[in-house]
């Protein structure tokens, strides 16, 4: 993990998020958090627990259940000197914020000829397999990735989560930050010393020679596990995490594929018109003359997420399917 430090400390993904918020709130008094049950409750995922004690209810604000309203207030506050972090409990509620994100936040800077800015972060979640059914399991990051004027981060490790969130808060543009709710307990190295991670810089999570697996958020771990399986049968997979879908580090993705001559793109959003489509077409175009096989896409099945434990897991790319697909792309069976 090129960009990662190796001092001993380990944190969970959730703790890394909290630490990033706390550090930025200490550093900049204009940063505040607004959302449903973010204060005493610290969100249903307990990610923000303790922040209200340090920063008080003026900076960690429990709001009514008004996603559009808090996003709109965030946009206005951001335009006038604050750095709001708007907490949208589930990514499934992002559609409620779309007007404010798409028509206001994303366009204010451009429409004002560069005079107004919207330094706001919209923090929300993605990810299925939690038995939460169709309205609490979606990964809708593609919707916001499509909109010029917005930036979108999809961290996959505690280290990346912290570094990218600090960057998001300091960025002078609206940033949508998607956290996989199933990863909050995931542990990983996070150095004591402060750091940030630039947007638009992919991270090579694993070096490889035979095939490139581009994966986002939760799917990075699926890809890494698939790479282990492939290793065992002599296929060397390179796993690349774009870390931000917008801006997208096209160069790294294309160069890796030029090297390996094969690519798979794995993302937990719906496959059709989703993140895998953009990345796969960028690679298919950029690495065209070097590809030995078609670029394969693996997104979530194009169905509303079913509740039944017998069905839900079938809708998300798994380690085995990724490994199988990689094998056949490499002409092995």
């Amino acid at each position, binding site marked *: 993990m090129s960009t990662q430090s190796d001092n001993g400390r380990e944190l969970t993904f959730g703790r890394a998020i909290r630490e990033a918020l706390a550090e930025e709130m200490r550093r900049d008094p204009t940063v505040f958090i607004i959302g*449903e*049950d973010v204060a*005493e*409750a610290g969100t*249903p995922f307990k990610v923000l627990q303790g922040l209200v004690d340090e920063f008080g209810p003026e900076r960690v604000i*429990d*709001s*009514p*259940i*008004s996603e*559009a*309203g808090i996003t709109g207030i965030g946009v206005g506050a951001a335009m006038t000197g604050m750095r709001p972090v708007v907490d949208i409990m589930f990514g*499934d*509620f992002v559609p409620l914020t779309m007007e404010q994100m798409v028509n206001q936040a994303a366009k204010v800077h451009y429409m004002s000829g560069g005079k107004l800015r919207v330094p706001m972060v919209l923090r929300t979640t993605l990810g299925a397999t*939690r*038995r*939460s*059914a*169709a*309205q*609490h399991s979606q990964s809708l990051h593609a919707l916001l990735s499509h909109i010029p004027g917005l930036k979108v981060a999809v961290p996959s490790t505690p280290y990346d989560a912290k570094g990218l969130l600090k960057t998001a808060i300091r960025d002078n543009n609206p940033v949508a930050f998607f956290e996989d709710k199933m990863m909050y307990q995931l542990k990983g190295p996070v150095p004591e010393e402060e750091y940030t991670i630039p947007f638009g810089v992919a991270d090579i999570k694993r070096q490889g020679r035979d095939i490139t697996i581009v994966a986002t958020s939760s799917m990075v771990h699926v890809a890494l596990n698939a790479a282990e399986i492939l290793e065992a049968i002599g296929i060397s997979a390179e796993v690349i995490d774009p870390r931000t879908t917008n801006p997208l580090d096209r160069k790294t993705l294309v160069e890796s594929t030029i090297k390996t001559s094969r690519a798979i793109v794995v993302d937990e959003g719906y496959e059709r018109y989703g993140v895998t489509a953009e990345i796969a077409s960028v690679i298919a175009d950029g690495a065209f003359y070097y590809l030995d096989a078609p670029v394969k896409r693996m997104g979530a*099945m*194009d*169905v*509303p997420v*079913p*509740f*039944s*434990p*017998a*069905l839900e897991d*079938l*809708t998300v790319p798994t380690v085995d399917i990724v490994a199988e697909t990689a094998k056949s792309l490499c002409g092995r069976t």
Partner: protein
Amino acid sequence: MTKMADDRAAGPGSRLKLDVEPYLHMYQQMARIRAFEEKVNELYTGAQMPGLAHLYIGEEAIAVGVCEALTPQDYITSTHRGHGHCLAKGASVNRMFAELLGKEAGYCRGKGGSMHIADIESGNLGANAIVGGSAGIATGAAFSAKHLGDGRVAVCFFGEGALGQGLMYEVMNMASLWSLPVIYVCENNHYNEYTHFSESTAGDITARPKAFGIHTETVDGQDVRAVYKTMARLVERVRGDGGPVFLLCDTYRYRGHHVGDIDRTYYRSKEEEQEWMTNRDPLKILSGWLVDQGLADQEIFDQITAEAKAEIEAGADFAINAPYPGISEVDQHVYAE
């Protein structure tokens, strides 16, 4: 259902005239809901239920009082805390448990789960996991009823937290403009998840629907007789083209926001919970009144409760032993024929 001569009950000697059945039926419905929810909690803590569930315990009088005033053809839309609404509107315990466990015999073939139970046969257009998400659906159902002239009314159940959603006001405005037969039933259990409603709700709740020209009433949500009587009157008004109404019910959830919300002291006191459970329990209030009136004695309630528990146990067993949907179902029902 049989018209109740509740008023006549007051006058002495008129007792014989009083029809006690409906009250016992309401008690039974509330007892079934409570037993159902207790079982859900047991299944969850026993790791026999996937996901989460939001228990309706403490709020039973609203679902029952409201649905008793409706016909099977009338529509309801429900919420994430919807088990009580579904049962009160006529759902079967077996198929509900099956749905909660993700089994094919469930109302949604296991695809919906606890927060999405829908049963068109009993007029239930579905629970909704988006707070306020069904306000448009209920209002649209009322639009159909008016346009098709089938005399149905639509009831939109929602928690006071949904008052934070702009959609509520958009649809209340249209329901009022077009005099749609919809009844907005606000279950104010005082908390939006872990936040007291006074921290999220400015002004006076009843002033909001009134501002849109909607007839608004308030009722004690723990007194099923009061809820029923009020609803019966409101349903009549709405069916008679009297336009939409808003009914604010004061209530309380005894348990956590969801089954996993055990330690609640950081947002509400044990005393508060105790106060409601002891002095404002909907089952106690009804049984107490019937006993005071000499209309029933305790045995009957014990019997009803026992029957309810038995039905619930059987339902849970049915569901536990029922098969899951076949994996080929995963991409079925995405689009209708």
